[in-house]
């Protein structure tokens, strides 16, 4: 029984071709160049939007391919989604406090 289970387990099934890693690497380098270039263009409020958008694209590529999330179990995917979810709670609830403090002083 144990033997058949070990035969069923094939760690080689997750081996990703070198070309895919090279493509991800190239994409990350290109996005780094784009984000440095985008910082030299005056986009006002959208500078930070573009910077964070590019960072998130890069981060997604790293997590999905370098960190093998695309080939991981659903439990691992839920863990990552939970991390993002709680991080957003931390940011959004903190900012609803700090960004609205000025409102109460402007009333007086």
């Amino acid at each position, binding site marked *: 029984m144990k033997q058949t289970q070990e035969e069923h387990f094939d760690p080689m099934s997750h081996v990703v071709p070198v070309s895919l890693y090279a493509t991800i690497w190239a994409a990350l380098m290109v996005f*780094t160049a784009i984000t440095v270039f985008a910082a030299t263009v005056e986009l006002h409020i959208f500078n930070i939007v573009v910077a964070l958008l590019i960072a998130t694209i890069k981060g997604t590529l790293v997590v999905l391919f370098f960190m093998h999330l695309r080939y991981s179990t659903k439990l691992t995917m839920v863990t990552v989604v939970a*991390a993002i979810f*709680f991080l957003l709670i931390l940011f959004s609830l903190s900012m609803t406090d700090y960004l609205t403090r000025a409102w109460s002083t402007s009333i007086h």
Partner: protein
Amino acid sequence: MATSDIQVAEHALQHHFADMEQQQETSTFGMWMFLLTEIMFFGGLFCAYLVYRASYYQAFVEGSQKMNIWLGATNTAVLICSSLSMALGVRAAQMGKPKLMAVLLLITIVFGCGFLGIKGIEYHEHWVNHEFPGPTFHFETGDAVHPATDPVHTEIYFSLYWAMTGLHALHMVIGVGLVTWIIIAGLGGAYSRSYFTPVENVGLYWHFVDLVWIYLFPLLYLISKKHGG
């Protein structure tokens, strides 16, 4: 699967797991749980950054103009290269090639130390320019037309800069130590095609540290167009 592989696999299988697959999945899940706590750990600093940047935007712009954008961009590229060699190293481990793995992980260490070296050059520059928060902190833009508008709050920017990049650099140092351990264990024959979980998990840690820098770079270096670099 080679006979030696099965022997290593049976040796590596702990008695409380049903099989190698369950053991590896449990281990990887545990690593991700650890990384989740790391995300919240760094998240606190990112949140502090968000609050103060929203409050003192101009002071943060002036602080960020003291960053060397080219050294920062070079370090970003260096880390991406280290992540590639790490991913290829894990791949070599998956395929049961310990020597190839050792070479690729050694390249990862070289990139990692290169990152720390460049970071050290930047730290030295900030230190001699009195851009370290504390009694020696002294901030001027050095331009009569554009005097520092808010040096007190620019000090907050530098506090966050040193804390965030410092914590990140500490993670890099730990990462280099972990990769060294994997190389030594790998050359000693600890891993095989059926058992390479520590390599996979150290890889996850390394990529996570890269991920943190992917956000630190634009947030600390690229705040505003009016950049000195």
